[in-house]
């Protein structure tokens, strides 16, 4: 549909005002919220995600596209709720305790929202207990943890241990990522998945949420 294509294109251009305006127009034309989301906003973010993965565009472009995506999501949110549109899943994300770097984590959050997930972002410097408590209370399927420093990444292991102690491990899945983090480290601490970059993190989370 032409209008939805225009939403996707404006989103890729980072034009938040236009995405908001076109989304309102689509709603006024009685296009179902689910379709506006999938064929407009999510379709646009998919293109942004693969261009970013291929280094055709860079972080500033993604951040501007994300702002445009949120402009559309804000318009759609009440309709998605009233139309009972299910999300792709619920995930709690954050940067582990002691780590104040959040670019990577924010990027993953953007891509997950762009893929239709409900994302609860706990921010930076998140204590292991807070990850586990929030995921349990919110009934999230996945906890996503990021670290940029080799010195802070040990906090990830603590989350896996806490889930284990509370009998939640396996029910709430864990995925980890960040510059110093490797697939080997994920295996070593018993995390369920490793995200090499934002795009692969979204693929892994989709698999985890489907289990």
């Amino acid at each position: 549909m032409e209008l939805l294509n225009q939403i996707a294109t404006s989103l890729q251009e980072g034009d938040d005002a236009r995405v908001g305006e076109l989304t309102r127009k689509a709603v006024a034309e009685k296009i179902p919220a689910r379709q506006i989301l999938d064929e407009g906003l999510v379709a646009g973010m998919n293109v942004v995600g693969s261009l970013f993965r291929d280094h055709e565009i860079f972080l500033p472009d993604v951040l501007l596209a994300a702002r445009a995506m949120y402009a559309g999501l804000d318009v759609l949110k009440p309709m998605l709720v009233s139309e009972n549109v299910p999300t792709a899943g619920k995930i709690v994300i954050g940067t582990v305790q002691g780590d104040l770097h959040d670019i990577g984590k924010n990027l993953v959050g953007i891509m997950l929202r762009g893929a239709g997930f409900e994302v609860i972002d706990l921010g930076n410097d998140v204590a292991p207990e807070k990850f586990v408590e929030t995921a349990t209370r919110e009934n999230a399927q996945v906890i996503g943890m990021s670290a940029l420093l080799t010195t802070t990444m040990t906090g990830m292991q603590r989350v896996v241990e806490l889930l284990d102690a509370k009998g939640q491990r396996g029910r709430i899945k864990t995925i980890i990522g960040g510059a110093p983090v490797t697939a080997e480290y994920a295996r070593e601490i018993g995390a369920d998945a490793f995200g090499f970059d934002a795009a692969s993190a979204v693929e892994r989370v989709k698999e985890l949420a489907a289990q």
Partner: protein
Amino acid sequence: MRPLLDRIQQSEVLLADGAMGTLLLGAGLKPGGCPESLNLDRPELLEEIARKYFDAGAEIIQTNTFGAAPLKLAAYGLADRTEEINRSAVLAVRRAVGDKAYVCACCGPSGKLLKPYGDTEPGVIAQSFERQLRALTAVGIDAVNFETMIDLSEAEIAVRAAKSVAPDLTVVATMTFQPTRRGLFTIMGNTIAETARRLTAAGADVVGSNCGSGIELMVEIAREFRKAGTMPVSIRPNAGIPHLVGGQPVYPETPEFMAARIPDLLSAGVSIIGGCCGTTPEHIRAFRTALDSLRS
């Protein structure tokens, strides 16, 4: 001592120090702690590290002030102690080296993202760097090195801030590049050619790269900087990309491995060579031996 920039302009190659954070962690800095709070609590430790690098043969010693701009210190509630934190770091290095080595202030990125893709006004970042630079230059430094920069726009702001506070101060500005199938870029998408051009235009005396990769990729990065123009280049590689052994990061590149590639950096026309994450006084000593044997 002759001014640092004079020596570089007469084609001398200067050796800088290696990693600071790696040694601080070894000396008991708590993971997640503010590395610059040690400037207040344990200045003798900074002096000891500076002396180790000086004894290893480094001629440029950096201060422990990577995160000591007030915007960064605010995360630890230490913004109002910006002046004493920076002052203490400079004094510690000066005590260790006297006037036998150059004291170079190390300044890292603000940790904020600029508008429109981020939420921070350029003026806020400029003021933060200016306040840090005023604190550093009040004590007396020979140069400043803005390092591990990922956003060229922020690096330009930093260089201009330094030049506005201290027009005669030697300003080095280095960024971190990643290899992609399309070439080398910062994570914000800046190329080396663009970096060299814009940082020079902003007033940087030396440009280059630090962190992010081991020495082999840094040789390529150095060659690209040389292709981009004639400005002096500073290169500070990591000791490779770390992997974890028993929860501890291990950097794979040994002093011998890295020192064996010093001739490649020289033929790429580099003016300042040092080390970033994972490099130690042993690495710098090996670099010194390699440089001296090439010179003779």
